[in-house]
């Protein structure tokens, strides 16, 4: 279905997007793809040295997942702005305890249209978004603005 300004109203929800559980391999893949080699995201010895339990996902990986959620609904040629505020850290799955750690590593992105308006001669929407894990812990919130046909 083509997304149009006509078909969208304030209060409408963006389709819920649920990721697969994030693994350490995903973190390494993202590090290589983005160039972010902060050891916090892959080096367990560095992480323990600074008093943390586990490596954590890049905040920008979570924003990237939120971006995937958005463009699977609103093609990014329509995007005008995308803002995120990082709220919580995400630990990946521990394979030796997968059952108990899968939920903390699975990201769910939801969104709600809060504004419909005209700007720069375009029909724009503002959609507030939230990313949480399956335990309900918030990872980021923010919004995007899109110009729809």
């Amino acid at each position: 279905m083509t997304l149009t300004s006509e078909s969208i109203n304030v209060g409408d929800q963006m389709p819920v997007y649920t990721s697969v559980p994030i693994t350490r391999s995903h973190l390494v893949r993202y590090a290589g793809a983005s160039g972010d080699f902060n050891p916090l995201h892959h080096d367990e010895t560095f992480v323990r040295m600074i008093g943390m339990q586990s490596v954590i996902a890049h905040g920008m990986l979570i924003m990237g997942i939120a971006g995937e959620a958005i463009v699977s609904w609103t093609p990014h040629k329509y995007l005008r702005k995308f803002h995120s505020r990082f709220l919580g850290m995400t630990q990946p799955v521990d394979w030796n305890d997968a059952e108990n750690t899968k939920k903390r590593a699975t990201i769910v992105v939801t969104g709600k249209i809060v504004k419909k308006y005209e700007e720069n001669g375009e029909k724009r929407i503002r959609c507030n978004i939230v990313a949480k894990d399956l335990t309900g812990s918030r990872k980021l919130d923010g919004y995007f603005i899109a110009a729809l046909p």
Partner: protein
Amino acid sequence: MADKSKIGMEFPPFTMVVEKIKIAEFAAAVGLKNSSEEIDSIYYDEEAARKAGYKGIPVPPTFMTSCFFWTDGLMGIVKALGFDLEKLLHSEEEYEYLGQMYAGDVITRKMKVVDMYERGQKDRPGRFAEVTVLETELINQRGELVTKVRSTMIER
């Protein structure tokens, strides 16, 4: 601790080609895919991208973050601004899309420190943070500003 004398500092401009293969790699990474074959074909197939209404192979919406790590990467920025890596966290990120970025574009990054300030009170640990705001302009080979980036980093 961030060095406040760096407010207004501009990093030397840096120019780089947006490589097609990096776009597919990035799309696979944010899609948590194990292979580039599992991603949307607009990220590797020009024909598919054109059918979807793009003039070339587009980039995922957060791809511009990789421009932050150009040149000497995170450590270069950490050193230039006097950050303490052990305390450093990314607090906010914003992209303003003024145009499209495509595979093969030659992008010049102009990055600047626009603000540094303290948030909260020093005697309340956990609430206090030193904030640094960076603004980056990404300009294509035709001189068009395609994306404006605003990144907020904090040290706690």
